[in-house]
């Protein structure tokens, strides 16, 4: 250290990089497993949160409800039921995948799943569960863990309600996760009740364009080295190492064909696809729906529970609001995640075309607070806000929400106000 100083320059950060090199590209790896990562506070708010929810004075849909009920409608008359990616859900919500990070794959995930079932909302099980944790090859431990989650979900879910979604990414494809599960007799109850979906994961909000990343210790690193890239970038001794999955290569034709392949190979499972908040997300979503996807999940740049380089958390990807604006009126079931934890943001996303919104970090924090009922309590509060807000808008079902229910102080255009907006997509991502 010298006496040199550089006012106005990020000297502290530069000195940290000079000392620690590549480790400074990431959050402190010692916090891994106990911290949920996401964008810094300064970048968390997107256009979606700036929009105000604006009830009209005249409410013809309230009159319809009044006629239907023969009494003045109340907020409790709002029907929150939804069809979420081919499943029947009690609420326009679902439990997002937590990925294979330590914080997301332990007991908390099991508690969250059981509560999601009781709430009657679908549950997504993250990618990389199998190649990281093994399936039959590594003994029955992982299979039991996965099945325990599924069985707990089935036990607690009301008949015919909810569903389980299993992600697969490039590394999972090596381990043929869907094939294993589809032919595993333990999954038959889900298949027979139409409550199994497979989600093709092409990216995630926390690190658009990259594959999954976790921090592993030296022993795990050696064990995983054959299936994953493992890099010593976190500390000079290699005690903690970075395990990287590849994101996989997609073009519109590759996506279309992979979805067709899923539908051909797993005809009894629903087909979901998840996109990172890319600049051509509208083209991607349209391609997926046209290829028969039952649901398209868009993970805004606010999303993600997982480990990611700081520059990605704070600087990469479209905010959820912009994703929804670019997609415009959806051609199918659109699911939105990223920064969801209360009713206001959820209503804004639903008004912009989402069928349901996913809870990721919020669900983990809730079950961390109260493993038995934390998620249920959180969701009860969101559901109440949804009923209050939707009824205030003079509407009594989720699907009735629309862009006319929102107003942006800075004139942020919604697809209803300024259509067509699809032409604004980057030419590189434009439809052929």
């Amino acid at each position, binding site marked *: 250290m010298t006496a040199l100083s550089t006012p106005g320059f990020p000297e502290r950060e530069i000195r940290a990089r000079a000392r620690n090199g590549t480790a400074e590209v990431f959050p402190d790896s010692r916090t891994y497993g106990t911290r949920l990562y996401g964008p810094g506070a300064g970048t968390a708010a997107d256009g979606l949160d700036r929009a105000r929810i604006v009830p009209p004075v005249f409410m013809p849909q309230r009159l319809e409800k009044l006629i239907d009920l023969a009494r003045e409608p109340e907020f409790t008359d709002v029907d929150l039921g939804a069809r979420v990616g081919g499943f029947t859900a009690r609420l326009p919500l679902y439990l997002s995948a937590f990925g294979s990070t330590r914080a997301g794959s332990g007991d908390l995930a099991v508690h969250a799943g059981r509560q999601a079932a009781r709430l009657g909302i679908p549950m997504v099980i993250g990618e990389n569960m199998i190649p990281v944790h093994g399936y*039959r*090859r590594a003994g029955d431990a992982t299979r039991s863990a996965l099945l325990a989650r599924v069985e707990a979900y089935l036990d607690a879910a009301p008949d015919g309600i909810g569903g389980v979604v299993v992600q697969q990414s490039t590394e999972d494809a*090596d381990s043929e996760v869907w094939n294993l599960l589809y*032919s595993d007799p333990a999954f*038959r109850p889900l298949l027979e009740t139409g409550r199994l979906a497979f989600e093709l994961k092409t990216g995630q909000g926390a690190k658009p364009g990259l594959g999954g990343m976790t921090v592993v210790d030296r022993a795990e690193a050696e064990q995983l080295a054959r299936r994953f890239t493992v890099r010593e970038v976190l500390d000079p001794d290699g005690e903690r190492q970075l395990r990287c999955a590849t994101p996989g290569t997609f073009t519109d034709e*590759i996506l279309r*064909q992979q979805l067709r392949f899923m539908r*051909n190979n797993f005809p009894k499972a629903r087909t979901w696809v998840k996109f990172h908040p890319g600049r051509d997300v509208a083209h991607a979503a349209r391609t997926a729906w046209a290829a028969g996807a039952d649901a398209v999940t868009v993970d805004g740049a606010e999303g993600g529970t997982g480990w990611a380089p700081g520059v990605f958390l704070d600087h990469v990807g479209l905010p959820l609001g912009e994703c929804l604006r670019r997609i415009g009126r959806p051609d199918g079931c659109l699911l939105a995640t990223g920064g969801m934890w209360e009713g206001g943001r959820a209503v804004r996303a639903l008004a912009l075309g989402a069928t349901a919104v996913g809870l990721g970090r919020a669900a983990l924090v809730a079950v961390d607070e109260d493993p038995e009922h934390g998620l249920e309590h959180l969701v009860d509060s969101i559901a109440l806000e949804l009923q209050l807000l939707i009824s205030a808008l003079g509407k009594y079902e989720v699907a009735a929400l629309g862009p006319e229910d929102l107003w942006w102080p800075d004139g942020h255009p919604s697809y209803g106000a300024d259509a067509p907006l699809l032409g604004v997509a980057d030419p590189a991502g434009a439809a052929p």
Partner: protein
Amino acid sequence: MEQPLPAGAPATPPPLGEHLRSPRLRAAMLVQQEALHAARAFLRGEGFTELLPPLVGPVTDPGGRGAKALDVDYYGHPYKLMTSAILYKQASLRGFPRLFYVAPNVRVEPEETATTGRHLVEFHQIDVEIADGSREDAQEIAAGLLTHVTEHVWTAVPEILSELGRMEGDFADIRAGKYDVCTHDDAVSRLLAAGHPQNPDGEIDWAGERLLSLESDRPFFVNDYPKGSRGFYDREDPERPGVLRNFDLIAPHGYGELVSGSEREADYATIVTRMRESGENPAKYAWYLKEARDGMPASAGFGMGLQRLVRFLTGLDALWQVSAYPKLPGVVAP
């Protein structure tokens, strides 16, 4: 998707010893022996060389329709039992421009296929590949093979076929070499017109295939399956993107698919792209892609299911009745 087994066949085999002692199995094996003899004679006559196929490898045919490969621990490496030796057939072409296997295959089929009467976990294929061949070349060999085998069994063991209830007249078209051709589009239209739901982007489902087969009195080729319904090695028609230069050969009277074949993709970059389109990780196929990069001949070929062929010849209800050691999907058997 599921369909009941035709009346007359129990859904599952009796205990193995009893099955092996049954006169019906004996009859089927005598027909199989003649069929194999005839197949080898025909193919050798057409200039083909018989190789013996590999049993395990780092990758195998990724297949489709939810069938999966069995894992083998190979000196610590995860290997697969062959679901088909298609990749090895292509790799062999420079040394053996016309080759065939009688190949054992293992596919862990979805349990719902146990009741189709047409699926076994362990089965054999007469697996043929022709360097620089076209789809039409492959179809000509497939048709010639079926005709020749049929002719031979009706000459060598007519009394067995008659005892099993087969009518010689039902085979007249095949013995005369008369085959029909339609496209996947035609097949889908016929199924939809008959009220059978059929995904136009997909493989024709088992029930649909049976319907088409029941409607027909002579065997027929179905050409031009859509991309996404078949493996990455089936060549896409350069003139018609999304359409594959492939085919199935369907037996008449409800016996269903006997053969799947295609022109093969031989261009390295196209193979890699097609692998991604079918969700495969190209890194797993390193040895095969090296062959492709070094220059694999264009080819066409097919696999004819041996047990399906024998079932068709004998007229037995279920595929397990023509396998000495049958393993039905989802049924744990010795």
